[in-house]
């Protein structure tokens, strides 16, 4: 057991060092920006994973919530407010939107939940696309400049990366605390046996509602980082393909795990941003990778790799145990 814990701590320490040194070892600004994208999409995927992995509620409308936070930041900055009020308003609006989203969609579970979230996502996309006086329609909204939190300049690629990394680490820590908490355990209980949870005295709907709010908060945070990164927001961000993409991140990495959505986000962003430079039909490649994951590791990359690793270790250990002991030489 101690060996496993030590191996985990070592892996986490290596990952942490790798993350904080990214601007020093990746080849150029483009790749630092790719790393920033991985980080804020990972926050988005972590948010969706709260629902998909821990609550068993598959949402296909999360891009709409992501877009609301991004648009709110854009509106506020366009209206002349500072970065802090814009960020706070985006978070508040994101949570308010998530509350309404939850009230409407938690009327059902399973296919019903998926269809309601899909419908809400499409309505939000339609509003962004057609309410031109507010959203600028297809032309979207452009931002000028990024904030300087605590005097820290984030206009450079590495500056923005470090801001994203700080928020990302805070998000990972928050999710890690949440999933270990009684509320996190109760949420997984509502995923596995909602009827039993009700009979044990839990308010199943309210637990799911709080999970939606937490998911919405992370989604809003990632939406704000996204809009500061691109300095532009258009209806395309709210499209169904965006919701499907982040769902792909969660499922491919491993729903219900802490690191699965992060690995999934890295996979999708790298294929989209890096591999697409070499392979024209990168969509096809992403599809093939996804099919391969579903066939070989249906539980996702992180739990699947862990399973294969343990299997390999057992096989390595087995012959060593069964090998005959060398006989002691007589003096």
């Amino acid at each position: 057991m101690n060996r496993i814990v030590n191996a985990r701590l070592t892996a986490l320490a290596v990952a942490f060092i790798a993350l904080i040194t990214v601007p020093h070892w990746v080849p150029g600004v483009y790749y630092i920006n790719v790393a920033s994208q991985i980080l804020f999409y990972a926050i988005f995927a972590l948010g969706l994973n709260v629902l998909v992995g821990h609550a068993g509620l598959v949402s296909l409308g999360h891009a709409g919530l992501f877009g609301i936070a991004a648009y709110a930041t854009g509106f506020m900055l366009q209206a002349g407010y500072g970065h802090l009020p814009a960020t706070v308003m985006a978070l508040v609006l994101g949570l308010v939107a998530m509350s309404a989203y939850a009230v409407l969609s938690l009327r059902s579970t399973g296919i019903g939940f998926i269809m309601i979230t899909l419908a809400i996502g499409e309505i939000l996309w339609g509003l962004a696309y057609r309410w031109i006086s507010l959203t600028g329609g297809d032309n979207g909204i452009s931002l000028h400049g990024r904030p300087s939190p605590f005097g820290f300049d984030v206009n450079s690629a590495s500056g923005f990366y470090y801001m994203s990394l700080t928020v990302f680490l805070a998000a990972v820590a928050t999710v890690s605390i949440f999933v270990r908490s009684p509320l996190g355990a109760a949420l997984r209980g509502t995923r596995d046996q909602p009827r039993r949870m009700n009979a044990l005295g839990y308010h199943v709907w309210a637990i799911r509602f709080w999970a939606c709010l937490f998911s919405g908060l992370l989604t809003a945070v990632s939406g704000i980082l996204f809009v500061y990164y691109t300095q532009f927001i258009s209806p395309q961000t709210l499209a169904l393909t965006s919701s499907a993409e982040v769902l792909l991140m969660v499922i491919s990495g491993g729903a219900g795990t802490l690191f699965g959505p992060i690995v999934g986000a890295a996979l999708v962003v790298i294929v989209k941003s890096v591999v697409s430079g070499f392979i024209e039909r990168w969509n096809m490649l992403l599809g093939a990778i996804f099919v391969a994951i579903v066939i070989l590791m249906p539980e996702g990359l992180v739990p699947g790799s862990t399973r294969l690793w343990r299997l390999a270790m057992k096989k390595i250990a087995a012959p060593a145990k069964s090998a005959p002991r060398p006989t002691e030489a007589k003096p």
Partner: protein
Amino acid sequence: MTALAIAGLSKAFGGLQVTRGVDLAVAPGERRLIIGPNGAGKTTLFNLITGELTPDSGSIALFGQDITRVPSRRRPHLGMARTYQIITLFAHDTIVHNVSLALLGLTPMRWNPLIDMKRQGHIVERARAALERVGLAHIAERPLAQTSYGERRRVEIAMALAQNPRLLLLDEPFAGLSIDERRDVHNCLMAIPRDVTIVMIEHNMDVALEFAERITLLHFGEVIVEGNRAEVVADPRTREVYLGH
């Protein structure tokens, strides 16, 4: 005061009347057995008592308090616990985690998103104590997936007992058990103190008759016979609808 008082309880699913004006009075500490052929409405009656189903008419009182309109999730907080005919547990977790969830359900701590559940020693201790009562403390850390059917039945009972109920509803606790497992579950139930009132549905008459003091026979959603063991077994209607000639 009665532990459980049901008056004129009725429930229909569309045109199918599954519970017809059921009256039931269970005294505190009593062991009551509900019997009846398949489709008699026994589990529906349990679902009405626990609030999983809303009655069309009638009333339910728990220790004098009318709970007919109390949401099902609030009833465990009033001292009602149940087990299910089809085992309903958390298969991905350990036995002690299953029982801890039952304990957590009655505390405000269940809303806490900040503390580490594994570090709540008092919850784990109480969960272990509940498992001790059903003889499973030695395998508390075992994943539920690695337990036998009989052990799962006992986990269900431990979860119910952990909530320190005043009224315990057991839905076919001996169903599908081997002779040894049946003996283990029987011993668990016999050890439950008298401050817990027990209402049990059971088909296994040998075990159930030994356990119960009073018996209610349901047929097509109606109470047709009620009395002590001797009275119910001797009643020709019992023989006709349930025990056979």
